[in-house]
């Protein structure tokens, strides 16, 4: 890891101010992706502004069916929050299967969403839950937020402060983890909300997380695994690598979507 200057922010505005004074600084949340990337020198920021202790970025609020999760809230906190589980158990179950227990104690929802790893779990949930990503300066709909592999609508140095969504009436996430890395080869989050069914897919799409429109239309008609018979995503639009080609991943999307619908209904 290259040399760097470390700064600790106690709140979001202090974090933004600290970062603005750096040459090529980055925000550090849980660091479960950024620190490994820095060790291999894939990332070499001049400065790190640690937001993991920023009080106004932490915590989960549930008001009726409206959910707000602070950006620096860890996966373990999301998984274990009883109030959140009461209205949206699917996101708790999903968070409980990210990485491993030690990673979940550090990794954060804001960090995962901002990094937009094509195999990360949260982007699928954000799309299916029609989440709003709130930053220090604006609110961005999940549909506009995830632009491509490791690419988001965030401006340079724009800090996510929280994630908001309305808990769906029913939802579930089904993941097929890579047997070695445990990252999603394909993960499908299905949510049945007031405006219909939304489906978020991670790990499989060549451009990162996406919503398969045909799946959503079929599930709007009938919310059952059977409704997905004969419908599939295009293999040429899927990732194709040593872990699995596009045809394999396209099939995984159908299988995981059926499992998620079965679990949700």
């Amino acid at each position, binding site marked *: 890891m290259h040399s760097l200057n470390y700064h600790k922010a106690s709140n979001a505005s202090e974090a933004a101010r600290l970062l603005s004074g750096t040459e090529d600084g980055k925000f550090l949340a849980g660091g479960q992706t950024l620190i*490994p990337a820095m060790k291999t020198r894939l990332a070499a920021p001049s400065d*790190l502004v640690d937001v993991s202790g920023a009080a106004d970025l932490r915590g989960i609020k549930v008001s009726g069916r409206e959910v707000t999760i602070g950006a620096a809230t860890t996966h373990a906190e999301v998984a274990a929050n009883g109030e959140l589980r009461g209205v949206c158990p699917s996101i708790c179950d999903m968070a409980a299967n990210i990485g491993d227990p030690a990673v979940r*104690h550090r990794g954060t929802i804001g960090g995962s969403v901002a990094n937009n790893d094509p195999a990360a779990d949260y982007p699928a949930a954000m799309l299916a839950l029609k989440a709003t990503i709130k930053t220090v300066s604006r609110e961005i709909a999940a549909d506009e937020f995830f632009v491509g592999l490791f690419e988001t609508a965030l401006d340079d140095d724009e800090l996510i402060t929280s994630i908001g969504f309305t808990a769906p009436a029913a939802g579930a996430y089904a993941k097929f983890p890579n047997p070695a890395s445990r990252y999603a080869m394909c993960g499908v989050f299905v949510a049945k909300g007031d405006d219909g069914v939304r489906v978020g897919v991670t790990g499989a799409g060549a451009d990162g997380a996406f919503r398969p429109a045909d799946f959503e239309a079929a599930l709007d008609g009938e919310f059952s695994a059977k409704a997905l018979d004969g419908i599939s995503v295009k293999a040429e639009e899927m990732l194709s690598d040593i872990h699995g080609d596009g045809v394999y991943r396209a099939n995984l999307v159908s299988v995981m979507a059926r499992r998620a619908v079965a679990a949700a209904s």
Partner: protein
Amino acid sequence: MTIVSMTVNGTAASADVEDRTLLVDYIREHLRLTGTHVGCDTSQCGTCVVHVDGKAVKSCTMLAAAAEGAEVTTIEGVANGELHPMQRAFNDNHGLQCGFCTPGMIMSGIDMVNRYKAAGRELDEAAIRHELEGNICRCTGYHNIVKSIAQAASEM
């Protein structure tokens, strides 16, 4: 360079370290507590697991500066005059062979038992195996590690 202070195994610790120093290097190189190991150095193997403010973390994937002011427990800090029940269980059940992964296994084992007890959940064999996802052992095939943690869970 930054002076980083924390409490390690109940004792105040302080060292002037480069900002990029990882918590595991702070523990091993500056405090000379070498029970915490570096295995893969890529957040996979779990032999570097320590507790920070009561939670298991991979100390190779956290900066020392981020643990400023924290309460850190390493494998050297779990015995209290006599072996911790988790250590004793690994001994009783032959839960180690070469021993390289053992400090991380014990720290993860204690963490999972504490969490399941606090939540009133049963830590059965399947749960132990799932919870050990972030700890790799290349000798034992895990069976005796799982037995060890199950025994300790009944005693803790």
